[in-house]
């Protein structure tokens, strides 16, 4: 050894090869799953949309009107002004995703809930809330219980009497007007809040009125371009107004990002121009399986005619039910565990129990739904309500765990400051902790909802029908769901035509919905993390 001789000739030599090989092996392993999934997604998209069946002229037209201009403007912006580039992308993304959800909401109003019923419930809720606010303002000296009971009575009376009274009126305004008031007004209020926060209260009124006018115009402009008033109003309220509001608000705050609008304009304009040009020149588009017929028709024995409509409606209803059940319960449990729970055995037990529940297989939850709701509580099988309740139980642990994380990220100093001002625990939670943790809670809930939307096994367990020809219209009607329909096609109707047409199309629709939900959650989380 060198040291024994007392001299060290050199530090020796360390080979880099092993390290480099290892590094690239790791990278390959990391990319393996992602690449495999990407390849599969490309295959399934190709099978569902069949882009190669289009005329070469169709591709050429869109290449000229959409792809090349987008690439040119995009590349220029990306090099000179990345912030504007992202802004333009965000506008297009918001518009695409919100239009998709607007489609879902429009479906609700066209086939599931009468606009007047919805309007009646919104009105009842407003009256109830108004009553509660009046009681709260009336006299703070009234004992809490008196106020609580009075508020409860008002809410109950309003919810029980008003909807019936409104729907039994002999004449009421047209659907467009009703939806403008019941869907547009809440959105207008939200827009107003943002405007008030950014520009002061004076602009608020203008913003609210502008929003209402834009939404209200839908009922009149829609029919001119061949859209009935209900979907037109909904699309304006749910997609156009939020996107426009986002774009305008951003530009007012960062005028230097105006260039991003150019990108959005090029993409949207290119799409419209391309569509018009293709139509005029008579080029046939791809014979995609995912077309209007697929989205709006029910199951059929022949693969080419089969559609996803009842399943989409079922998934929407399930999502609403699951969200309504799991959000309050999950957040409530998280608040208890983070803010109230003493460090005792019961708390630790609940803690361990929740993490174990998160690992229980989904079929077992399905059995729970079947056994408890169907066999013991005597509900009929496969309804929206028990499907939603079962899925809500399934995602509850996930919601609780992510909500706890969000609550934990609220700094303790904020709680102490609130207590220092004399706030009680509930006031602190309501005014300080929950608002601060809300984006995190929302992210976790959206991800969990995505999980619920993709679940099939629990629905099969509770006896949801494999084939459903009409939309569920009430909580007690039978429900189908997108993944369930895909499963039915892939197993019960397993045959080449279904494997090549209906299933890929169903998979593509399901994945688009899920991926956009995931991306909303991820965008929210990134924004939230960078804000902190």
């Amino acid at each position, binding site marked *: 050894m060198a040291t024994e001789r007392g001299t060290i000739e050199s530090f020796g030599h360390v080979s880099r090869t*092993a*390290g480099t090989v*290892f*590094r690239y092996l*790791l*990278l390959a*392993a*990391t990319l*393996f*799953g*992602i690449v495999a*999934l990407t390849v599969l997604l490309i*295959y*399934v998209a190709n099978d569902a949309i069949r882009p190669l069946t289009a005329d070469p002229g169709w591709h050429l037209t869109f290449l000229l009107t959409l792809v090349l201009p987008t690439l040119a403007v995009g590349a220029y912006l990306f090099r000179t002004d990345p912030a504007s580039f992202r802004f333009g992308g965000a506008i297009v993304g918001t518009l695409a995703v919100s239009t998709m959800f607007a489609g879902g909401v429009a479906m609700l109003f066209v086939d599931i809930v009468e606009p007047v019923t919805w309007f009646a419930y919104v009105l009842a809720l407003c009256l109830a809330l108004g009553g509660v606010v009046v009681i709260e303002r009336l006299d703070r000296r009234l004992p809490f219980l008196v106020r609580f009971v009075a508020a409860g009575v008002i809410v109950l009376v309003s919810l029980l009497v008003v909807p019936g009274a409104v729907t039994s009126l002999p004449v009421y305004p047209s659907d467009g007007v009703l939806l403008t008031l019941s869907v547009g007004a809440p959105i207008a209020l939200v827009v107003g809040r943002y405007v008030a926060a950014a520009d002061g209260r004076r602009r608020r009124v203008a913003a609210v009125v502008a929003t209402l006018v834009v939404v209200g115009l839908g009922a009149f402009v829609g029919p001119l371009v061949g859209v009935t008033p209900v979907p037109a109003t909904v699309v304006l309220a749910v997609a156009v107004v939020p996107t426009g509001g986002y774009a305008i608000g951003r530009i007012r705050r960062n005028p230097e990002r105006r260039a991003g609008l150019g990108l959005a304009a090029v993409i949207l304009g290119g799409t419209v121009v391309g569509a018009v040009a293709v139509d005029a020149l008579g080029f046939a588009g791809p014979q995609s399986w995912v077309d209007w017929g697929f989205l709006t028709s029910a199951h059929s024995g022949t693969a080419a005619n089969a559609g996803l409509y009842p399943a989409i409606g079922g998934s929407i209803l399930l999502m609403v039910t699951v969200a309504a059940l799991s959000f*309050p*319960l*999950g*957040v*409530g*449990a998280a*608040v*208890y565990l983070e*803010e*109230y729970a003493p460090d005792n055995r019961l708390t630790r037990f*609940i803690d*361990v*129990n929740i993490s*174990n529940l998160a*690992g*229980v*297989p*989904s*079929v*077992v939850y399905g*059995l*729970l739904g079947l056994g*408890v709701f169907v*066999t013991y509580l005597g509900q009929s099988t496969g309804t929206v309500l028990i499907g939603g309740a079962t899925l809500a139980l399934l995602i509850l642990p996930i919601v*609780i765990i992510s909500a706890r994380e969000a609550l934990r990220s609220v700094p303790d100093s904020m709680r102490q400051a609130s207590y220092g001002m004399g706030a*009680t*625990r*509930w006031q602190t939670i309501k005014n300080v902790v929950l608002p601060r943790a809300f984006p995190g809670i929302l992210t976790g809930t959206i991800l969990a909802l*995505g999980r619920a939307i*993709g679940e*099939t*096994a629990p629905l099969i*367990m509770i*006896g949801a029908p*494999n084939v459903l020809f009409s939309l569920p219209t009430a909580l007690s009607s039978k429900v189908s769901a997108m*993944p369930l329909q*895909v*499963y039915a096609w*892939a197993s019960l109707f397993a045959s080449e035509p279904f*494997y090549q047409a209906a*299933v890929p199309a169903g*998979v593509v629709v*399901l994945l688009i919905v*899920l*991926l956009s939900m*995931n991306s909303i959650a991820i965008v929210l989380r990134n924004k939230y993390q960078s804000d902190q």
Partner: protein
Amino acid sequence: MSTDDLTQDLTRRTENAPQELLTRSFFFLCAVLSIVTTLSIIVLLTTEAAKFFSVTAPLMGVEGPTASVVDFLTGTEWVINNEQFGVLPLVSATLAITIGSAVVSLPLGVATAIYLSEYATPRARSLLKPALEVLAGVPTVVYGFFAVVYITPALKTIIPNLGTFNMLSASIVVGIMIIPMVASISEDAMSAVPDSLRQAGYGMGATKFDVSVGIVVPASLSGIFSSFILALSRAIGETMAVTVAAGSQANLLNPLNPASYLEGALPMTAAMVNLLTGDITGGGIAYRSLFAIGLTLFVITLVMNIISDLVAQRYREEY
């Protein structure tokens, strides 16, 4: 107002004010709901399974056909129509899926975790982590479809005698599905290893490779193991992918023999789904066998989750 009143007013104990009590009890009830859920799962599965076995059925006051516990646990035939309820074929298929998916997911998951925690730049991480989340977010029924329609035909070009429904492609998709789980839990454990240990390694002249393999991985071994167990318990409970891809023919196979992956089999979860997609009559023996399998499944996954928890806690290196 006298000063006494004022003091009293200002120092009112708010802890038990009605508003506080009300909200606190609501939150408490929400938290207790999780215990209620667990209890009802356990009670439901055990009572219904008790009605299934001939030993316990009289206690539950059930008449009609039952199955003996011994036949259930050691029987090698699962034929519902003949009322042959041997769970071994189902367990062997589940075991095969678990082993097969472990072969795919464990090495890839750990490698991903090492890459993300030790090598990746922050920018690469911010791209790779959401992409991995997408991997876990794709519905399992879609994975099943991928296995049947794309992966099996592709594998058939290499292995000609592969069945249409086979364990191989089912294991591969389940493996891909649980990579993110192994990766994210292992990565959490690796990022919890303090930097001082790494710095000490570099100070001794170790290369990045030596530090990753010789210091970070051993230091986070308990986390890695608990991620393995959790991921495998997920693979055991995985339902739709195997239902679509593994076929519906129950047969007893040897999970350690690679040749048995070429044919289809019926894992426990798929057996449950198949029972229900057929016509299910509430209260029949087939209905109760569902709960017997469910109980088996629940116990296996629960035990694995608890073991994973214990491993993570007991063998965690405290720094």
